[in-house]
Every structure is written in structure tokens, then in C-alpha cells.
């Protein structure tokens, strides 16, 4: 998966982001200052940088100018509009405001990676393969017909692999924000998905919360 550089001076947040990215199969480099960030940038092949704006030795905006060839997502506590505009006009792909949800961070990481065509197009779960570019799911060599909702559910579970997604979240993803359905609708679709793809051992129910795809 992708190589992601985390530039964040707050150790707790840095560690948390790193662990979450690792869970979903990304490889991360943790640094705490601008100098360290440049060192890693020069020696590694990076796909994305998560950058804090307030760094001990420099400012995130200045650092971003030197990381030109890699997409940047700002992670910042500053929620002033002025800074957001500056970040986005300065060539950043996106920004995220602390405190943030891990799901949100992962979703944005995925979007940016997909835009720069660094995201994996093929995801394998046991003998099931999801081809995200073509929207095709195969099991063994056989193509499986999935409804649009089933496909969206499977895709988000696969992208957020090993992380539980709540029923509400899944409902939003597959049916859209405007859909006022019952969360139990999700249960029905997940049950069908498990059966069609024989993923009973991989799509786990998380007590009182939602579902998690474990790889």
C-alpha cells in the first residue's frame, strides 16, 4: 500500500495516526520536526504527507513548498478560515481539523491517493478480489453480481479494513446522506454480502456498533 509521511510534533497524535494507517495496510514514517521530514522526503519514495501546520522548527506551509512533488494533507488545530484558504491555494490536496475522526482521515487519505493514482485498485480478501477501478468483484475466477449498495458497503469496509464502521456510517456511504432508512437495512445487506462472497469469517459484527472487515 501507500507510503505516508506523518509530520506532527504531538507524539500522541502522531502515534495514533501511524497505528491507524498501519491497521488499514499503509506504511507510515513518523517524524516530529520539519528537518526530519525533509530527511525522510529525500530518502524515501513517498505517496502522501500528513502535515501539521505548527511545527517546532518551521511552519507547515513553508515545508509544503519544499515537498512539491508529493500530495499534502494538512492536519491542524487551527480552524481559522484564513489558514484553510492559504493551505489550499498553496497546493495542498486537503486539510483536516483537529480533533478529527479516524474514519474521516482515512477517507481523505483514500481520496487523495486515488486522485494521484497511488491507491491500490485491487483489494484481495481471501479468494475475493475487488477491482475498484472497474467496479468489478470476482470470487475465484467467477464474477459476482452485487447491487450498488452491496458494492459500496464492501468497498468502504475494504478501504477501512480492520477498522469498524458504524451502521450509521455505512448507511450514509451506501445510501447517501439524505436517506432516512433504518440501520437494520445495513444488517440485511451485510448478511447477503457475506453469503454471496462467503466472507462470514472476514466481515465481523462489532457489538452494538457496526461491522469490520478483518484481513
Amino acid at each position, binding site marked *: 500500500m501507500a507510503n505516508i509521511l506523518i509530520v506532527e510534533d504531538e507524539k500522541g497524535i502522531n502515534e495514533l495516526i501511524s497505528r491507524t494507517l498501519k491497521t488499514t495496510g499503509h506504511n507510515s514514517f513518523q517524524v516530529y520536526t520539519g528537518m526530519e521530514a525533509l530527511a525522510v522526503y529525500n530518502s524515501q519514495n513517498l505517496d502522501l504527507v500528513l502535515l501539521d501546520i505548527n511545527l517546532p522548527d518551521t511552519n507547515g506551509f513553508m515545508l509544503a513548498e519544499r515537498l512539491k512533488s508529493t500530495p499534502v494533507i494538512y492536519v491542524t*488545530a487551527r480552524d481559522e478560515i484564513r489558514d484553510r484558504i492559504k493551505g489550499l491555494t498553496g497546493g495542498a490536496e486537503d486539510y483536516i481539523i483537529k480533533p478529527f475522526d479516524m474514519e474521516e482521515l482515512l477517507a481523505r487519505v483514500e481520496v487523495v491517493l486515488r486522485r494521484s493514482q497511488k491507491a491500490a485498485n485491487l483489494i484481495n480478501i481471501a479468494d475475493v478480489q475487488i477491482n475498484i477501478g472497474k467496479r468489478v468483484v470476482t470470487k475465484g475466477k467467477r464474477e459476482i453480481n452485487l447491487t450498488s449498495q452491496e458494492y459500496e458497503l464492501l468497498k468502504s469496509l475494504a478501504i477501512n479494513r480492520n477498522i469498524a464502521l458504524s451502521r450509521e456510517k455505512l448507511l450514509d456511504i451506501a445510501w447517501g446522506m439524505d436517506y432516512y432508512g433504518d440501520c437494520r437495512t445495513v444488517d440485511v445487506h451485510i448478511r447477503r454480502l457475506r453469503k454471496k462472497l462467503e466472507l462470514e469469517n472476514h466481515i465481523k459484527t462489532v457489538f452494538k456498533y457496526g461491522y469490520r472487515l478483518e484481513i
Partner: protein
Amino acid sequence: MQLWKKNYILTFIMFLVIFNIGLFFITTKFSENELQREVETAITEYESIVYTFSNIYADDPSSRLIDYLSSQYSKDQIYLKIYDGNSRIKSTLLFDMIQENNKISIEKMAGSKYICITNYSRNSPLQISFMKDLSFLNQKQQDRLLSTLSVDFLLSLFVGIMLYITMKQINKPVSNISHELRTPLTNIQGYAQYLMTVKTSEEERFFASEYILKEARNMQEMIDKLLIMGNIREGEIKKSKIFIQRLFEELAEEYPNLQIQPTARYIYGDKMLIKTLMRNLISNSERSGGEVILHASESSIILENRDDYIDKDILKALNKNLAVKSENIHGYGQGVHLCHEIMRRHKGTLMYESGHKNGTKVSILF
């Protein structure tokens, strides 16, 4: 817009409205008084004119003096119309005024103000109407208005700037603190979510829970310090006799690595606050490693750490109670502020000294 800016604008507008309404009333009242005074002067003048002219007329009805005096008066912008029964003797009036007996009126003509008086007296053989130009009052009022407005503008500007600075200063700690509270909150929120959603091993569960606990404690500590800070800023402190040896022993129980030197001295102060101060200094010092030694001398308590060295710039900031850049501190930067505040309330000072050779020395001077 930030709340304090909204408050500022609201307060300032309220000030402007009240101040200007007040000013308007004062100037209006002043002008009215001035006009009143002018009317009274004019009545006196009128009476003296009637008296003079009547006497002249009684002596010699065809006297040229009446003509002459009338012309002289019109040079002073006083215009007269003099009747003898029904025949007019002399008129220097600029326009025909309403002639009604016992009347004092203010009339406007061609942008100028005139006071008109007609009051025939039975004792006098003459009927005299009187008109006086009051345009000079307008000029005076305009001058006054201009100076009032410039004073108003300068004062409003001054008050506006002072208010802005004060409100900004009041708000500054609030925005600093909310920023500092956000970091532990992000951690707590993030790790709790991590525990809830990620399939974790025993090690990961322990790691995340430990982080949540640690950050919660940090927040607790910060809030405690802020509360103490708020309390000591407002209330009076209760001073009592504190035996330094006793204080040292109590601290040594809390910090097992602390070295204390016996002393028989005592100080007067608020024991709870002095202890908070000492705890802050000791834990700051212990964090940099090395042995912390406490001893007392003439009206001061001294804390020394031979292995600690503080950079010159930071030392300056510490002594002047300025903000130290966050990369140079371990905690949330409220501790030293609190220490200075406590010493200020005790009318004492806190002094940091540091050198490569002797390490760091903090003197608490009473």
C-alpha cells in the same frame, strides 16, 4: 468573528451612542443658556435705549441726537424704529417686524437670527421697536461644535483603542488555554475511537488506555492550575508562619529523590500556594534529570539542580514571566506563570540563574 470581538464592537457602539447623546444634550443646553443670556442683555439694552431716547425727546422733540444715536446703534447691529404717536421719527430696521406690544421674539431672516422687542411704556412718549442681530451667536456655536466634535473624535478613538487592548488581553489566556486543551482532547477522542473500532491486541489496548489516562490527568492538572490562578488573582491570600524545615520534609515525602538541607528558618505565606509553587519547580527541575537540592538562606528558599542547564533566551523569558515557545517546554507552559503569580501575591520574586558549570538555581525571594 470571535466572541470577544463582537463584545468589543457592541461595547464600543454603546459607548459612542451614550457619549454622543450626552454631548449633544450638553451642547444644546449650553446654546439655549447662551441665547437666554443674550435675550436678557437685549432687554436691558432696550430699556436703556427707551430711557435715553425718551429723555432726549422730552427735552427737545426735534433733536437731531435721536437720528444720530440710531445710526450709531445700527453700527452695533442694533436696529430701531421710533414712533411718536403715529408719526415715524426714525427707522433703521432691516425688515418689517411684527409689531405687537409686549412681545419678545426671535425672528429668522436670510440665514440670520434677530431678537425683536416691542414694549411701549406709558411713561414714555415714544414707541420704540428694537431689533438686534444675533448672527454672532451662530458663529460662536459653530466654533464650539467643531471643537466639541474634535474632542469627541479624539476621546472616542482613545477609548476605542484602550478598550480593544484591554479586551484582547483578557481574551488572550482564554484562547491560549482552549488551544492547549484541544491537544489532550484530540488524543483522548482518538484513542477512545481507536479502542472502539480497531481489532486490538492486548498490547495495543494497554497502550491506548494508558494514553487516555495520561491525557486526562494532564487536563486535570491544567484545570487545577487555572483554578488556583483564578482564585489567587481575585481573593486575598491567608498568610501564616511556615517552618521551612517542615515544608521541605513534606515535599521530600512526595518526591523521594529530593535532597533537603536542614534549616531553622521560617517564612510568612499561604502554605497551600507555597507548596504548589514548590511542587511546580521541583517537578520541572526533576524532568531535566539530575539531583534536586533544596536549601534555605536569609529570607529565601533555593532550589538547585547541578545537571540542568537552561538556555540564555529561555532564562530571560522565565525571569520576565514571558511565554516560552512550546517546543522548549515539556508541559503546557502554565506552571511558571502560576509560580510568578504566587510570588507576586506574596510580594516576593522568583529568580532563575543558570550556567554550564553550576547548573540551574532557582531562588524564591521573600
